[in-house]
């Protein structure tokens, strides 16, 4: 009976999907976000720069708040502030690594403070701050969907062109430098891709939870992939599953979608971690 009930719920969701454009937008946004998150998140995980990504994500609220105050689209404000934050953190990281933590912390806090200030001073104050903080995939407009599509296309194109350089710099920066690769340029380009991906993900899960979607699917994929391409494809697939499952579950149970997506991803990460711990030693033994 329970299974019949679940099938009925699923049918209900798919009927709603054909009827409501906001659900269709949500699904397309989820697919586009999964592609960007899987590709770029893989480098965040292997290069261990999730703190930098967190700094960029939180500083974005400043740009969104200012854009909203001035009457522009908050998403466009997010793009500008994400790129500015990425460049500041990137340059500090390259030129004065000892100050990296402090600068990330400052951008993180000042960005959020600016955002709260400008949003509170916006005439009418009818925007829901929670939407920026926790996202709302059900409120993606056609214009935003097009912008997300353009960002996604840009990310995929740059990733295809620079894949081997990103791999080389992430795996062995010194060797890449010796082979004449422009290591600093590639690092900044990678941070720009991360910034653009964060802008996309903020629509889905909000800036507080963005790091989860950027790191959990690639982290799970890393337990099972033999190379970086496999890891990326697996991360995209997992991200798709988590987004779609989160959308269905939150729709059925009337839960916040962003948080549901992240909790599903978190549960899978935990399972993968446990199974990998049991599986790992076996694989090492076999390789000897």
């Amino acid at each position, binding site marked *: 009976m329970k299974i019949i009930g679940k099938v009925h719920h699923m049918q209900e969701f798919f009927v709603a999907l054909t009827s409501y454009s906001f659900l269709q937008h949500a699904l397309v946004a989820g697919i586009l976000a999964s592609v960007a998150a899987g590709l770029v998140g893989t480098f965040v995980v*292997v290069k261990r720069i999730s703190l930098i990504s967190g700094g960029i994500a939180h500083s974005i609220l400043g740009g969104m708040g200012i854009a909203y105050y001035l009457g522009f689209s908050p998403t466009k404000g997010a793009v500008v502030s994400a790129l500015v934050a990425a460049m500041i953190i990137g340059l500090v990281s390259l030129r004065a690594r000892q100050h990296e933590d402090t600068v990330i912390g400052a951008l993180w806090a000042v960005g959020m403070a600016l955002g709260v200030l400008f949003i509170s001073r916006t005439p009418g104050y009818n925007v829901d701050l929670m939407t920026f903080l926790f996202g709302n995939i059900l409120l993606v407009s056609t214009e935003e969907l097009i912008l997300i599509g353009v960002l996604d296309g840009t990310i995929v194109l740059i990733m*295809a*062109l*620079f*894949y*081997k*350089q990103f*791999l*080389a710099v*992430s*795996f*062995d920066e*010194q*060797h*890449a*430098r*010796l*082979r*004449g*690769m422009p290591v600093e340029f590639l690092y900044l380009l990678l941070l720009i891709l991360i910034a653009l991906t964060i802008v996309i993900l903020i629509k889905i899960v909000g800036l507080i939870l963005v790091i989860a979607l950027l790191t959990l699917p690639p982290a799970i994929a*890393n337990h099972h*992939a*033999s*190379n*970086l391409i*496999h*890891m990326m494809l697996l991360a995209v697939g997992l991200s798709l599953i988590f987004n779609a499952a989160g959308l269905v579950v939150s729709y059925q149970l009337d839960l916040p979608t962003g948080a549901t997506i992240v909790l599903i991803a978190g549960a899978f990460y935990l399972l993968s971690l446990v199974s990998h711990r049991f599986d790992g030693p076996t*694989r*090492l033994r076999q*390789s*000897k």
Partner: protein
Amino acid sequence: MGKSIHEAVQMTNLSFSYAGAGGVPTLERVNLTVQTGEFLGLVGPNGGGKTTLLKLVLGLLLPDTGTVRVFGEPPGKARKQVGYVPQFADVDRSFPITVLDVVVMGRLGITRFLGNYQPSDYTAAQRAMEQVGVWELRKQRLGDLSEGQRQRVLIARALTSKPRLLVLDEPTASVDSTAEAAISSLLMRLQGSITILMVSHDIELLNSHSDRLVFVERHVLPIPKGQMLFTGRFRPREK
């Protein structure tokens, strides 16, 4: 045609000190010439400046005073002619990368900048892997290999660019005896065909392969041919 360069490496009156070392030079008034095709072994105590010297040759560090030339050019310009094997296989074992992906990276700077590697890059990688004896490991994840296997993979990566100068920093440190024998046999095969600069604490390995040995401890001092090093106690006096 430019003039023929017989010196693979030439250091002239070179001094180098690290920032924060209180002005104490790590290397001081170093004069060193390595001829093309020569195998030069570098020995010396830890912290004596051996790795620093290699990094100056690679252009990863710049001298405070004096000059370094590699095949007649500043190190930054000669990098494509140089293959480097780092001190030990200090790689992130959790990084998802296959042996083939690592070795083909040696083609960076030779292959086209944008897009993927070309078939000729994979052919060069295969040749280097067969030379070092790791071709059968090509599909394995690097983190699943033993220390010795990983070190041989890094040597293959260095050889993939067909370098004129091979720089090795402690290639046999922390490898088992089988891997050590494999590396030793590879060095024997390479000897004479390219210039080799090798730092090692393995005196036996250096004695069997190098044409010349120098002792590095702030200064670079020649070790006379025939001077026994098996005790590892050799400490020439500075003139």
